[in-house]
Structure formats: structure tokens, C-alpha cells
């Protein structure tokens, strides 16, 4: 649905995006990750036809972004990094305007505005001026305008930024509910968001593709070992020695009040670790998967992988 080949964007001497290639299948939600200034926003701007690329090709919903920009613009919804709002308009008035310029047929405009007001949770503020609503509502108006033309492809640049935790949950649920009918590419700084919402990730740094695939695929190719971190009533060398005794465990390390237990990828020793902790009465307080998205992300961005 979104296909990018050898995409390059230069601002003068500065290379913002460097021969980027990736592909997003229809109906899936993909996250675009990377540090600040990695080229996320530039990539999205090229995909939406806001910026021209220096070289390369981008195809969205079967149309080339450079050859048929209008065809692409008709079928996409885009939430830019800076939400494009007119402060002196009412929320409903603004959405009606966006429906007009996105060429939603006249007969369907009213229904479209009502639909996005409902799905973005804006029913109560429809008649208020945009300048008078809170940051969270403004963000939701941004998401609502992106959905007004019932787009095949949604491109969201940091959709949950500036929202409170409850609103973040709501927006995530909203995005998840769009899976299947819509293809979504979203950029984010919040890593757990990716694990909760996305089917796959594209990680870029300094304009170059660092990794692309589902989380499991990435973990498999970047991490040689799998493991858990266990939190015990007391974590010391004695307890570590006990874990080292489990057949298959390769590495055990004490980290403060926690113990890190690793084994080679492909096995699953989580039950054994838990059973040991319970049988020996070690006071198991917490147990979590080792290969968190944070570790994986840092590893990929810095270009380090396990030996």
C-alpha cells in the first residue's frame, strides 16, 4: 500500500533521507521510529506530497506521489507534526472545510463531519472555537481531520504527543480500531506505543534505514539471546548461583535488586525460572521479558548488535 524505493531528500548539502526503501502491506499499522532529526517527518512529508524528493520513488495506494500527486492526496489522511488548525474556526466548521478541500462529495460531508466528531471523541466541543480548546482536544481535531475523507492510507506524525495518559489510551484504541480497513504509518517517540499498536516497525537513523520488520523478526535478527529479569525479595550471588543451575541458562547477572537470566534464542525457560523461584521460596516480586523494545531500539539505532 505504501512502497518507498531508494528515496533520497537533500536540503542543500544536508542529506535528510538517504536512499530509504521500505514497504507497508495493506491494512497493517506500521511505526516509523528514530531519534530526533532522523528523517521521519521528512519521509512523511514526501509521502503526502508536501515535499518533493530529490531522488527515488514513492508509491501510495497504487499511485506514484510525484506523477499523480492529486490521486494520492485524495486517498490519504495526514496528521502533520504541527497540527494544521485555524484558531478562529469552530471545530465542526474546520472539519467541514477540510471535507470540502479533500473533495468529500457534498452529500456526504455532513455525515463525514459527524462521523469523525464521534470517533475522535469531539462531540462536546464541535461548536467551540479551536483557539479555546485544550491541547489534547486540538490533537484530536488533527486526527479527526486526517480521517475525514475515510482515507485508505493514514499517515500520522506523532499522533499521541501532548495528550494525557487516558487520552493516549483512547487514541491508541482508535488507531487500533482502524486496522484492517486502513493502512497506517505512524511515527512516535513512545516505544511501548509501538508494541501495543503496531504490526511492524521501520527504524531509521540519520536518514538511513536501520531495520524493518515485525517486532519478533527484529528481535530474532538483533538479539542472540532471550531472557527475563526477575525481581526477588533479596537478590544476591547465592540466588544467582541457583539460577545458573537451570539447564540451558547461559548467563546470569545481578543488577541491583534484580537478576537477569539469559538463554539462547529459540528456547523458553521462563517456566523453569519461575518454578525455581517459587520452589526455593525466593520471594518472586516481578518477572518481565528481557528483550524490551527499548533495548532493541537502542541497539539498532546505535548500530550495535550482539556478537
Amino acid at each position: 500500500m505504501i512502497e518507498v524505493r531508494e528515496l533520497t531528500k537533500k536540503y542543500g548539502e544536508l542529506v535528510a533521507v538517504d536512499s530509504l526503501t521500505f514497504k507497508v502491506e495493506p491494512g497493517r499499522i506500521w511505526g516509523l521510529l528514530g531519534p530526533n532529526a532522523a528523517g521521519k517527518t521528512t519521509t512523511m512529508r514526501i509521502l503526502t506530497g508536501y515535499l518533493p524528493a530529490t531522488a527515488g520513488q514513492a508509491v501510495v495506494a497504487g499511485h506514484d506521489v510525484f506523477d499523480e500527486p492529486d490521486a494520492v492526496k485524495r486517498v490519504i489522511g495526514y496528521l502533520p507534526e504541527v497540527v494544521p488548525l485555524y484558531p478562529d474556526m469552530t471545530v465542526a466548521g474546520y472539519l467541514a472545510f477540510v471535507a470540502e478541500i479533500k473533495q468529500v462529495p457534498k452529500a456526504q460531508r455532513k455525515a463525514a463531519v459527524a462521523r469523525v466528531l464521534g470517533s475522535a471523541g469531539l462531540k462536546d466541543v464541535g461548536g467551540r472555537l479551536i483557539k479555546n480548546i485544550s491541547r489534547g482536544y486540538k490533537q484530536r481535531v488533527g486526527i479527526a481531520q486526517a480521517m475525514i475523507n475515510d482515507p485508505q492510507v493514514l499517515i500520522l506524525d506523532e499522533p499521541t504527543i501532548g495528550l494525557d495518559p487516558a487520552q493516549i489510551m483512547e487514541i491508541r484504541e482508535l488507531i487500533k480500531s482502524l486496522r484492517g480497513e486502513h493502512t497506517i504509518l505512524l511515527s512516535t517517540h513512545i516505544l511501548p506505543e509501538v508494541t501495543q499498536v503496531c504490526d511492524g516497525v521501520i527504524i531509521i537513523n540519520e536518514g538511513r534505514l536501520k531495520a524493518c520488520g515485525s517486532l519478533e523478526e527484529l528481535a530474532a535478527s538483533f538479539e542472540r539471546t532471550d531472557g527475563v529479569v526477575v525481581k526477588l525479595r533479596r537478590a544476591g550471588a547465592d540466588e544467582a548461583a541457583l539460577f545458573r543451575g537451570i539447564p540451558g541458562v547461559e548467563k546470569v547477572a545481578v543488577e541491583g535488586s534484580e537478576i537477569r537470566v539469559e538463554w539462547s534464542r529459540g528456547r523458553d525457560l521462563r517456566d523453569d525460572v519461575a518454578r525455581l523461584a517459587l520452589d526455593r521460596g525466593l520471594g518472586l516480586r516481578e518477572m518481565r521479558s528481557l528483550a524490551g523494545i527499548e533495548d532493541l531500539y537502542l541497539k539498532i539505532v546505535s548500530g550495535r548488535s550482539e556478537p
Partner: protein
Amino acid sequence: MSNVWSLVKKEVRAYFGSPIAYVVMFSFLLLVGYFFYSLVLWFNAQAMQMAQNPYYAQQVNINEMVFSPLFHNMSIVLIFVIPLLTMRLLAEEKKTGTDELLYTSPLTVGQIVVGKYVAALVLLAVLLGLTAVLSVFAFVLGNPELAPWLTGYLGLFLMGAAFIAVGLFFSSLTDNQIVAAILTLMTLLLFLLLNWVSSLGSGAAWTKVVSYLSFSEHFEDMTRGIVDTKDVVYYLSVSFFGLFLAHSVLQSRRWR
């Protein structure tokens, strides 16, 4: 076409949804009302005196003595008012990031430019239309000729339209509204005063060319009821050129 219309509606609503339109209309009407009032007083005094002499009495003409100077004054005020109306048109969109919405919608750059231009023309028409109310008094109480009055307003509208195109171009260059307004004002003043050179060169060819470019040069006849094609063509060309430049500036984003 419907795209342009959507933009026009949005822009006109933006003018009237914020204080800009009202402040501009209030100040413009106040000034023009004052000009009209003082011109009518002066005309009255003159007419009284001239009526004493049968020869001069023939020459008492409300069109020449009230409307013609009034239109001139209005054209000067427009030079200061138009930059304030046009400065936000494109600069504000750039500043607030809303241009990203416009450029990622299925709108062409041409539609955006024309939509903005037409919206400002609507405001200009409202502005001039309101001042026409003053003239109603003159028509009820006196008997001015209609034709020169109409051509005067036509001239003001064409001139204002040209000013707006210039303002739109400067608004496309920057994301700073003040910069856009200052550049527009300076350019309009310069073009207004270009015909001063005609007094320098004593009929040399270059002075004629330079004065031809002056805004005021083409307005004179219209206030007297004469519509010369060359004047109309001049204002339309300036409008077209301004829009063309604004379009080129915005379009250049595509290859930068």
C-alpha cells in the same frame, strides 16, 4: 472551481471571524466620511461664491469638485489599507503550519492563489460598497452625473485589485506578516509616485515609460468618467503579474 470557492468562503470567514475586517472597515469609513464631509462643505462654499458670477456658475460641478478628489483620497488610503488585508493571506498559513494541510489536499497552487485573491477582492468590494452609501446623500440632495461616479468606483476597484495582487505576492515570500505588509506598502508608494519623474525629464522617452508604470497615472481619467482600455489593461496586467509571481514562488517549493 469548487475548490477555489471553498477557499474563498474560508478566507472571507477568516476576515469577518476576526477583528481585521471590522477594524479596517471602521477606519476606512471614518476617513472617507471625513473627506466626503469636508469636500461637501468646501463645495458648498465654492458653489455659493461661484453662483454670484454667471460665467463661473456654469462650471459648478459636483462630480469634479467632490467625487474626483474623494476618489483620489480613497486611492491613497487604499495604499495603506490593502497591505494590512493581504499580509496574512499566505504568510500566516506558512507561520502556523496550516499550509501543510492545503498542500497535502487535492488543491493546485493556482487554486490556492486564486482563492486567496478572490477572498481579498470580496473584502475590497464590501469596503468600497460601504463608502458608496455616502454618495447616496449627494445623489438625493444634488444631481451629480452617474457615469463618472461609476467609472470612479470601477477605477478604485481595479486599482485595489492590482494592490491586492502585489500584496499577495509579498505575502508568498515570507512567513512574517509585518515584513509582507512593509514590502507591499513600500512598493505601492513607489509605484504611486513613479509619475513624478515625468516632471524631471521634460518629455524624454524613459520618463514616459516610467510614468506609464505609475498607479496614479491610470486613475486620473477614470475619476472623470473616461474608461481607456490602456488603463484597464494596465491594472489587469499588474494583477495578473502579481498572481503569476505568487504562483511561481509557491510552485517553486516543488523543485527546491
